[in-house]
């Protein structure tokens, strides 16, 4: 795919799919129409040039493909849609678009701001297993392909593909509604949605593939969804906490990479390059959360990011506050990744040996295929003067890294260390 098209795809695929699911009442038909539109773009754009509004072009073309298909296969499609369509709450249950009335179709395919939110709640439907919710959201809303999802979640591509197929079939067979849940159901449904928006954000923050360290569009998309969620549920502190966390992390984006695209660690970042506007917004949200005093995992992580943002230099970081916050987080989410981050903070507070001791105490089996674990361990080993073990840990981290910028950084660290040994 040409670069321009890839970029448009990342930006528009989810939005476009969300709207077409509402129009067609079927996930597969919508995906097909969007894929067809991108295939036509791949054919036409290199010779005719990229249209002035590429996103609009894709949406219109996908819509037209869908209309063509409805016309061409109208009797079969009617039967199919009548029995399978997902119901949107603003349409009569038995209303089908009339393929000969382009006017009514135009109205139907108009982009509705809520479409992505509907799709969000559909993908995160409680009748689906969490693994399926994650895979479906990343696929339909994030525009990620199966290998990217598989790498992000340390499972095989076949597993991801199967999860997506089953999830779509279950939603269709069960006539899952295509709507934003009513007020009474919202709080319960929101929890999963937040976790999945954050996963999209982290996927964008350190892309699992591609040349750059970050995939700005995905992060931006996650932040956009986060904003929609906080607008929809201003009294839900975890939604606010999630947005704050994403903004405070996003503020460091420019400082995270060198001119050549290599990754720069938090401790080595030029903090004057942090985005003060995003930090101010994130801080205000964290303060609003503190006033509410209903702490949850996203609010605590946002508070940790806020402590980092407060430090003018890395040495000014209040590590004791950060360790306390990780303790609170671990009490609510006792998982190995939280424990790993806590161990890193312990190392900053009490030295590399204390950090390594905290790592040793972990059940490392789930972390064996997790690149950040090996990178963190390598760093602590190097600082503790255990060079050979550190080099070995860097080797493992390099091996697991799917991101070139990250890999370059790890290779440099390893080379410096090996050179020091003489």
């Amino acid at each position, binding site marked *: 795919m040409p670069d321009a098209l890839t970029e448009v795809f990342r930006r528009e695929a989810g939005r476009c799919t969300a709207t077409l699911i509402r129009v067609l009442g079927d996930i597969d038909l919508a995906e097909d129409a969007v894929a067809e539109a991108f295939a036509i773009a791949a054919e036409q754009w290199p010779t005719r040039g990229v249209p002035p509004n590429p996103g609009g072009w894709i949406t219109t073309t996908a819509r037209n493909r869908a209309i063509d298909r409805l016309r061409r296969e109208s009797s079969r499609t009617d039967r199919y849609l009548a029995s399978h369509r997902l*119901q949107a709450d603003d349409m009569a249950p038995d209303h089908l678009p009339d393929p000969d009335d382009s006017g009514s179709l135009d109205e139907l395919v108009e982009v509705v701001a809520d479409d992505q939110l509907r799709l969000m709640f559909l993908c995160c439907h409680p009748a689906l297993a969490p693994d399926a919710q994650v895979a479906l959201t990343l696929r339909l809303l994030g525009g990620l392909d199966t290998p990217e999802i598989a790498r992000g979640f340390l499972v095989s591509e076949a597993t991801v593909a199967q999860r997506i197929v089953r999830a779509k079939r279950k939603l269709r067979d*069960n*006539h*899952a*509604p295509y709507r934003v*849940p009513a007020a009474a159901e919202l709080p319960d449904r929101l929890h999963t949605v937040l976790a999945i928006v954050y996963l999209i954000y982290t996927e964008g923050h350190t892309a699992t593939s591609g040349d750059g360290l970050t995939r700005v569009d995905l992060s931006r998309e996650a932040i956009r969804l986060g904003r929609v969620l906080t607008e929809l549920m201003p009294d839900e502190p975890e939604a606010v906490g999630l947005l704050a966390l994403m903004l405070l992390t996003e503020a460091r984006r420019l400082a995270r990479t060198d001119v050549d695209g290599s990754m720069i660690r938090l401790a080595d970042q030029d903090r004057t390059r942090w985005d003060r506007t995003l930090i101010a917004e994130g801080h205000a949200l964290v303060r609003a959360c503190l006033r509410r005093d209903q702490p949850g995992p996203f609010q605590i992580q946002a508070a940790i990011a806020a402590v980092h943002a407060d430090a003018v230099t890395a040495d000014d970081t209040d590590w004791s506050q950060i360790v306390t916050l990780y303790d609170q987080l671990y009490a609510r989410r006792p998982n190995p990744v939280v424990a790993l981050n806590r161990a890193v903070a312990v190392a900053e507070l009490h030295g590399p040996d204390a950090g390594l001791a905290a790592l040793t105490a972990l059940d490392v089996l789930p972390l064996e295929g997790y690149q950040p674990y090996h990178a963190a361990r390598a760093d602590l080993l190097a600082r503790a003067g255990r060079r050979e073990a550190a080099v070995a840990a860097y080797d493992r981290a390099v091996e697991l890294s799917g991101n070139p910028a990250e890999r370059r950084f790890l290779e440099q660290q390893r080379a410096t260390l090996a050179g020091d040994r003489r």
Partner: protein
Amino acid sequence: MPQYMISVWHDGPYDDLDVSSPEVQRLFSQVSAFNASLEQAGAWVFGTGLRPASSATVVRATGGDVSMTDGPYAETKEQMGGFWVILAADLDAALEWAGKAAAACEGPVEVRPTEDA
């Protein structure tokens, strides 16, 4: 409108209900109130409790021959104790009914969509 089966599950074999026990009386009255709410909403298609699985007979028809064996068919520990078939606009509506069904019969229920006509 879509139809769903809501089935009631027991973790092991169960006996014939002792209708005179206060516990069974309580469940009966809860379930009949739930049935009434289904009917009132126009969601009722069918519903009933089932006699214990040990009362089941398996019937096979192969090549024109019909044979019978002592049931039940599924050799599972878990037993279906009864079921409803309901009409619901969509999955969320069906799940809402299922929540009320689980509360009425004080046990887990399973929701499955029927094959479309």
